[in-house]
């Protein structure tokens, strides 16, 4: 190495850098390429072992998409997911926004402690709670209904959202509210008319985050909901798009692609703020 000049070393470094990036990107994104190509391949092409599977050997087709939209409950699942997402987002905002504000501003030192306590409940996994919760859901008469997950999902979206919003509210200068209160607003009015409008970007992060969690959750939906018509997309696609032992891979992969890409794009836009929630305390 010592014999290498500085510039050739830099070139070598650049090559290694790109090799690492390309290898990781290809491996990590490959399943999505695979979903894409499977979705548009003719069945005869798909199941011919002689064909090169990486390319279209016959003309692409829309038959799998037609099957997906016309003969399965896919649209219904998308609708269910959107509806459940909307409800969970509403509940989360109504409870988490005031809670985060109160814990940052109105409770002094132990507000932070309570905040950490709430955040830690985010660690309690669904796989520990699903058995008792299935009974609670049954007692409430919500089994096999979309309302079961609308009730339960806020239990993990509220903790994380509260924590995330506490970080936001902390960064708002106290003087702003004090000035507003001197001008005659009550504390609660200042919260409604001043703090919420300037925290819209934080609130939007919570909306996106909550919505993606609703689409990603699997265990509770699997436990509480048993009929295909009431599923969300994250459960309906992998569990109910299979008839007996027959996988309709073309339609299945099309469903996977449609269900994951929009969420991925949204999530990507808000990722940095989301990660900040996990790293608060260990990064300064």
């Amino acid at each position, binding site marked *: 190495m010592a014999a290498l000049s500085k510039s050739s070393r830099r070139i070598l470094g650049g090559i290694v850098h790109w090799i690492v990036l390309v290898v990781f990107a290809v491996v990590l994104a490959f399943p999505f390429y695979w979903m894409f190509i499977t979705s548009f391949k003719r069945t005869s092409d798909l199941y011919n*072992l002689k064909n090169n599977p990486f390319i279209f050997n016959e003309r692409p087709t829309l038959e799998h998409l037609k099957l997906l939209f016309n003969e399965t409950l896919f649209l219904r699942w998308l609708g269910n997911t959107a509806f459940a997402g909307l409800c969970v987002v509403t509940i989360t905002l109504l409870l988490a926004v005031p809670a985060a504000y109160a814990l940052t501003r109105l409770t002094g030192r132990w507000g932070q402690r309570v905040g950490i306590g709430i955040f830690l409940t985010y*660690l*309690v996994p669904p796989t520990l709670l*699903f058995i008792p919760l299935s009974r609670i859901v049954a007692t409430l008469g919500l089994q096999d209904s979309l309302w079961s997950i609308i009730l339960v999902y806020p239990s993990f979206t509220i903790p994380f959202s509260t924590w995330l919003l506490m970080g936001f509210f902390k960064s708002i200068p106290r003087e702003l509210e004090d000035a507003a209160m001197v001008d005659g607003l009550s504390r609660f009015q200042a919260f409604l008319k001043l703090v919420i409008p300037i925290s819209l970007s934080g609130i939007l992060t919570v909306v996106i985050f909550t919505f993606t969690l609703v689409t*990603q959750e*699997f*265990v509770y939906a699997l436990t509480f909901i048993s009929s295909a018509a009431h599923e969300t997309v994250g459960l309906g696609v992998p569990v109910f798009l299979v008839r007996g032992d027959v996988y309709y891979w073309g339609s299945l992969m099309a469903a*996977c692609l449609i269900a994951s890409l929009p969420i991925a794009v949204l999530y*990507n836009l808000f990722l940095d703020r989301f990660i900040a929630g996990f790293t608060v305390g*260990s990064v300064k």
Partner: protein
Amino acid sequence: MSALGRQRWLGPAMFLPAILYVAALIGVPFALAFLYSVGDVKVASVGYHFVGLENFRSVLQSPAFRTALRNSFVFTVSSQVLVLIGATILALALKDAFRGRGFIRFLILLPWVAPVSIGSIGWKWILDSLYSVINWVLIRFHLANEFSPPMWLGEPKLAMLSVVLVHTWHMLPFATVIILAGWTALPKDIPEAAAVDGAGFFRRLFQIEIPMMRPIMNVAVLFGVIFTFTDMTVVYILTRGGPYDTTQVLPALAFFTGVLGSDLAEGAAISIFVVPLLVVVAWLMLRTAHRAEVT
């Protein structure tokens, strides 16, 4: 009511609804899980009888449980080791700005941001017994026998390997972005001073940057361990614990026993085994948070 009195009342009025909601849907079932595990609850049963540690005794005697417990550790440790190594390398490659970074980052994030159940079903197709694209490549390069290609999800060892690798695939982006966040926040002066003093790339990496990154790597590992040890999605979709329970993990076994098998008590007893790990992780996390608060 005086302004001060109203303010004292306002705080609790704003945070109590959230706390009560979480307490009702996490605290109550958490307590119930313990209660079930020492009782005799079945799906249709009405009464409750205390049976002491009976469920735990029967669980511990079952070979399926012991396999699942061992698998859970294998699954968690091996995937987290792979994730940590992969994520550190990847974060290193991504930390400086370069043309196309946004797009590469998007591709790399896909496994984490797409619903994991859907990513797993994608892998199920890639690992298909007949049409696996991996086998097609292996056969093309004469690395596998055309007439008995590897059954990725059908042979115990390969199935475990597949489950671990798919979970690693899913978790890698998450650890990468956390480590990346830590790297960007790292003070630049110390590594730069070391570079001026003649410390090479690897020396700086292993003796300065990685030690400085320890707190943030802890965060990535702690979350990773929890999200892995308590997850059943990848296993459920790829193998359902098979072949012959060889890839069964604790959460999936709890699901099959407690939810599908209707034996709530035994299912609860199985899932209770994740609690010690949760406690340790929560404690470590509080310590990290506390240390950051003090310094």
